């Protein structure tokens, strides 16, 4: 009546396998919450439409001639959307930690990092989906990737990677505060200033000098600038390298930190 345990795999293969299994599980969770599917789809669409029509007139004036606000806005709002999305990593993980199922995961001989990897990877996939959706809506109101398919793909990938890096920050937040509501609030407190004090919605030159200085080096600004250049043209290399540096640094710090913290929570 019982099955014997199969032989153990090498560690890295276990991490990949268990990480994938939990990614699938988390994506299943997502589609099983119809309200979540609907609202997390509607929200980014709403943002695209609201921002471009409400601010388009005013901010359009401050843009260089020949650049319309929708083209300027869309790359920024891609980054904004994944940044906001990544706060859901905190909520999802805090929810998991609340549930008994985490005890089973922790008492099984599975990869310890799989719960975190499965969570951040599922959120990465959802981010890609959201960006593609927003790009689709953008196309309806006049946005175009004018540079070419390669650059367009790179733009989407960079946005997704940026969201993935932030997911690890918020995974760490969740492991610290534990409670889903608190994790949500904490994540928003961090993400709001980061996104709004950036080049996502307005040209940095329109901000007061001190703010423009800070904003210029913000990870959101450099990422938005890189995505914008990849999508609608402009100097790519410098913002792209800075953005990748941020992404690598954030993952390098928060991935091990989160795994360490996860091992310690009871």
């Amino acid at each position, binding site marked *: 009546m019982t099955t014997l345990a199969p032989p153990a795999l090498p560690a890295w293969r276990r991490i990949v*396998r268990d990480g994938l*299994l939990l990614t699938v*599980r988390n994506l299943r969770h997502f589609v*099983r919450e119809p309200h979540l599917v609907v609202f997390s789809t509607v929200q980014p669409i709403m943002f695209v439409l609201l921002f471009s029509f409400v601010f388009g007139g005013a901010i359009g004036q401050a843009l260089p001639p020949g650049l319309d606000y929708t083209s300027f806005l869309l790359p920024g709002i891609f980054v904004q959307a994944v940044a906001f999305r990544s706060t859901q990593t905190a909520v999802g993980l805090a929810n998991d930690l609340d*549930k*008994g*199922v985490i*005890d089973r995961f922790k008492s099984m001989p599975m990869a310890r990092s799989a719960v975190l990897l499965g969570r951040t990877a599922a959120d990465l996939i959802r981010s890609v989906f959201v960006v593609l959706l927003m790009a689709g809506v953008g196309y309806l109101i006049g946005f175009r990737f004018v540079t070419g398919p390669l650059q367009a793909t790179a733009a989407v990938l960079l946005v997704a990677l940026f969201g993935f890096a932030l997911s690890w920050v918020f995974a760490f937040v969740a492991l610290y505060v534990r409670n889903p509501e608190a994790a949500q609030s904490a994540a928003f407190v961090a993400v709001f200033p980061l996104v709004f004090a950036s080049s996502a919605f307005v040209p940095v030159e329109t901000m007061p000098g001190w703010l423009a200085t800070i904003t210029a080096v913000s990870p959101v600004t450099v990422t938005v600038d890189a995505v914008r250049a990849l999508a609608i043209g402009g100097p790519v290399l410098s913002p792209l390298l800075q953005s990748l540096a941020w992404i690598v640094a954030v993952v390098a710090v928060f991935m091990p930190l989160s795994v360490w913290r996860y091992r310690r929570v*009871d």
Partner: protein
Amino acid sequence: MNQPAAVRVQGLVKRFGKTVALDGADLEVATGTVYGLLGPNGAGKTTLVRVLATLLRPDAGTAEVFGHDVATQASAVRQRIALTGQFAAVDELLTGRENLQMFGRLLGLDVRAAARRADELLARFELSEAAGRHARTYSGGMRRRLDLASSLLVRPQLLFLDEPTTGLDPHSRVTIWDIVRDLAEAGVTVLLTTQYLEEADALADRIAVIDHGRVIAEGTSDELKDHVGGQVLEVRLRSTADRPAAEAALLRLDGTAPQFGRDPLRLSVQVAHDGLGLLTNAAAALRDAGVALTDLGLRRPTLDDVFLQLTGAPPEDPQPRETSAHAAGPDGSAEAPAEHDARHVRHNPG
């Protein structure tokens, strides 16, 4: 026997802030046996199981599973154990089948083996019909069964069951008991916690009584019962209103205070000697006091009596219970350590 013990716990201490959940617990579970951990709410049963399942780190003392230290060799321990915790560890948003398939895959079964094993277990645990429903729509009993099935996808060497039948109806309880017996037959060591004495009695080869984070008695069910003494006089009242009168009448008989179990209608008195005489006198005394009974009789002690005696006796009790234990059966050696431990029972709540 040169096999290492399935579980060896020495001087285990676990604190949560100011609460001392485990206060120097000692325990040894032989491989291939069913071991019962019996204790009231807050005794530390769950904490002990969670330490053994590598979910909590102990503050002091050692805990080993098949010779592997739970703190320093956790992954070796995890390869040998399965845990069905006090609160069902199932994924609410997945169906029953998806739960089992996912855990099977995480335990290293390939897709087909996991699917086949999931269906086998669903059938065995009478969950086939509900297999396609989300676990959050399951009743408490179904959840428990799914949780237990999740522990058996791959055969564990040691299975922890934390209050496996609490809150279940009699039918589900018997199903779980049968499964535990089958597992024991198949050579799986089982450590189960329970508040139900008849459960420990029915399933466990050996039992530890735990209270305030310490093991206060240990032995086979018979050894523990012998510890209480030869016989118990049991009275069942028709109405709880008669409790004070019945208590007073029984106390006058031979000075041993009657004890109350969880059943408010039931009183029991340990019989030191001459059970029949006591029975006759009790019948007369209760009739004179005008107490209406539904039952009166002498019986062998149950674990309930053991439990009451070990954990329920008030500290200022002028009549130490050891006197009745001395009147126990001929085998004095078995009760000696339990008696020694009984003196360490602490009664300060919280």
